[in-house]
């Protein structure tokens, strides 16, 4: 049986592009209206959108590297989907540009009057200054672009003319990717989100964002994979056992996120040092306290029990609902990270939500759909020439 018999190409429907474009435009319009009203608030909304897009895109690159490194079989049929979704990391530049023009609106460390007032922030100036920030942002995007080329584009080419030893070189790049990824995603998390509160210290914040990012990427890939599989875009040989592993990984990373989030809280709560507690003080006062408690259930409690049993992981229908839930839990998590900083800056007591904040997930979803259509158009949706492809379709638990 040749690989083409295992998988027949079915072009993506243009409905997807229309859907994506409409949703993106709605999101962009919402954000635009928000910008017209309050540039600061709209910028905070865009930070959430940026962090979501990087989560999904960069997290997908991580999933690809992980597959090569551990030599996983089950995920090979879905790798092409992950490779396409990884393009969101590049497209996130679109969201970064309006932000880069309005950096002074969001980052208090860019306001000299504040720097003088706070000697701790002033001491961080060698890291937190505009030039170095821009340098880091550019390097981070270059790194994402480079690995998008290495993992995704090389794999796309593989479909047309297979190269010998493709897996081996990819695995080597994956090994290089891991430490680079660890540093880059930490820097991204610190630069865009943690520095919203420049006084704050937390050494685990990068890992926190990483845990959430992998969850978000997994959720998006799972959702797309199950939807495509159900509508006959993927091989008929895929079984529930393949999808089961998405559930298992999401379960693992749900626990990992809870572990990291709790560790960050426990250590800061226990040591009780003002430079560290201030961030949690913002999130445990007044209405924010309720939102913080909700986060525990939304991002940990509910996915945990929803994914705990074996049947729930083996049932693609349920898995897709949980994947959507986890994606929105990550949206909520980003809001929980960014929102209080805006409220504090704007002198508000509690949380605010409106066009500016809602635009973030809408733009993200729209852009993912558009990117998926544009990149995936005319390509095989499964890596048919992968050495492991045939074997991976036979995978069972």
């Amino acid at each position, binding site marked *: 049986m040749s690989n083409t018999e295992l998988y027949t190409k079915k072009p993506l429907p243009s409905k997807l592009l229309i859907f994506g474009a409409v949703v993106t435009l709605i999101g962009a319009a919402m954000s635009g209206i928000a910008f017209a009203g309050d540039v600061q608030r709209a910028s905070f909304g865009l930070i959430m959108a940026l962090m979501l897009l990087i989560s999904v895109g960069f997290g997908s690159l991580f999933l690809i590297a992980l597959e090569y490194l551990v030599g996983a079989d089950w995920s090979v049929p879905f790798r092409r989907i992950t490779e396409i979704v990884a393009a969101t990391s590049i497209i996130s530049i679109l969201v970064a540009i309006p932000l880069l023009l309005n950096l002074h609106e969001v980052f208090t460390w860019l306001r000299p009057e504040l720097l003088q007032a706070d000697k701790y922030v002033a001491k961080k100036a060698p890291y937190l200054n505009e030039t170095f920030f821009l340098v880091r942002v550019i390097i981070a995007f270059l790194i994402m672009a480079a690995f998008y080329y290495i993992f995704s584009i090389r794999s796309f080419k593989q479909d047309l003319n297979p190269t010998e030893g493709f897996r081996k070189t990819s695995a080597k790049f994956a090994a290089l990717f891991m430490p680079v990824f660890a540093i880059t995603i930490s820097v991204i998390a610190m630069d865009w989100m943690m520095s919203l509160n420049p006084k704050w210290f937390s050494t685990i914040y990068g890992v926190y964002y990483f845990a959430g990012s992998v969850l978000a990427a997994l959720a998006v890939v799972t959702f797309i994979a199950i939807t495509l599989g159900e509508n006959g875009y993927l091989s008929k040989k895929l079984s529930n*056992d393949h999808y089961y592993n998405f559930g298992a990984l999401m379960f693992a990373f749900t626990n990992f996120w809870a572990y990291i989030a*709790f560790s960050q*809280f*426990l250590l800061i*709560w*226990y040591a*009780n040092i003002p430079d560290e507690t201030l961030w949690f003080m913002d999130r445990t006062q007044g209405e924010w306290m309720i939102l913080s408690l909700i986060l525990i259930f939304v991002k940990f409690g509910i996915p945990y029990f929803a994914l705990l*049993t*074996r049947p729930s992981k083996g049932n693609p229908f349920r898995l897709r609902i949980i994947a959507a839930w986890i994606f929105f839990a990550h949206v909520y998590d980003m809001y929980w990270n960014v929102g209080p900083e805006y409220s504090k800056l704007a002198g508000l007591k509690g949380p605010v939500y409106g066009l500016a904040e809602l635009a973030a997930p809408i733009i993200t979803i729209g852009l993912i759909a558009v990117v998926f259509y544009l990149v995936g158009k005319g390509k095989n949706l499964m890596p048919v020439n992968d050495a492991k492809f045939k074997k991976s379709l036979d995978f*069972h*638990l």
Partner: protein
Amino acid sequence: MEEKILHSVTGIFETPDDIIKAAKGVSSAGYKKYDIHTPYPVHGMDKAMKLPWSPLGYVALVLGLTGASLAILLMWWTMSVDYPIVIGGKPLFALPAFIPVTFELTVLSASIGTVLAMIIFLFKFPNTSHPLHDTPYIKKVSSDKYGVSIEASDKMFDLNKAKDFLHKLGAKDIEEIYWDNEELNTVKTIWDKKFLGGLVMIAIIVGGGTYFAINKLVYMTPFNWMMEQPRLDAQSVPVYFNDGFSMRQPVEGTVARGWMPYLITDADTAQLSDAKYMNPVPPTEFNLNKGQRNYNVFCSPCHDYHGTGVSRLKAANKQDFPNPPSLHSAKLRGWSDARIYHVITKGQNTMPSYALQITPEERWQIVHYVRTLQRAMNAKPEDVK
């Protein structure tokens, strides 16, 4: 040959794919009591054997929840009820701090409990033997072959049919496995006297051995780092500071906590009548009672319970300790409180200082009591009214 009871029929397969096919075949043929043996876990076996969901998950859930609640209960009781100590300014019931321990206990009791439940209920501990043991079949399937055994206790079992069936599935080395008579005749339960006795023996030996090993063989001083730390030994040269001290000197004029230096000497007692040396302790009932108690303890042996100066000390051992003067003399009644305080603190001639035994507050309380005694002995006319 004596009559033997058949346990099962076994067949050997060569590859994991074959055994999956065989498992599917046996389960769809309707056999219920059969088993598959493989040298390592073969993926997809559960489904091929149509195994129902294992109930062990529920055991783990219940035990995990038990462990979690026990942990919380233990910490709540010890930390907030039985021996409440404020640690790091945290509340007595500091939930975040309890979560790691709760998590550990959940995992621990769930995993240990599940393994025990599996051994006791599913493996029917202490029954450790099985007819398949010590057969050529089990030797093969535990090294490099895969095997099926169909048990004779299955409802639809028929020896020849089963053999034919295995043959059709492609099995090799089809064998009949018989019960060992000894296995059949010995019934093992947990309540077996020998087994329980063995458990007790093991407990005693392990407990005793551990006690001996830890307390005698490898005894280690607990917390010896205070002894091991760099310190100044007598007759040795201090190494930490160049000035020859092993500790830093306190800042000039430093006063120890709760202690005030008493600078007045016998030479300048005259100033003690000054108003600024007033008795700082109010003459409340509580203070008088304490004064009385301490006077009776410390002063009465020499000064008598009423301050008359008839010394019990002298009466007791007839030694040459002088009787002290009466505390009711006009001189003493004219003294200020601080002057009496001074005598207690510094002593006077043969009377020793009580500064070490009696705290300043207690001294002032005693002074109040002495005043009460004086007043009682020298009542003014208006006191009698």
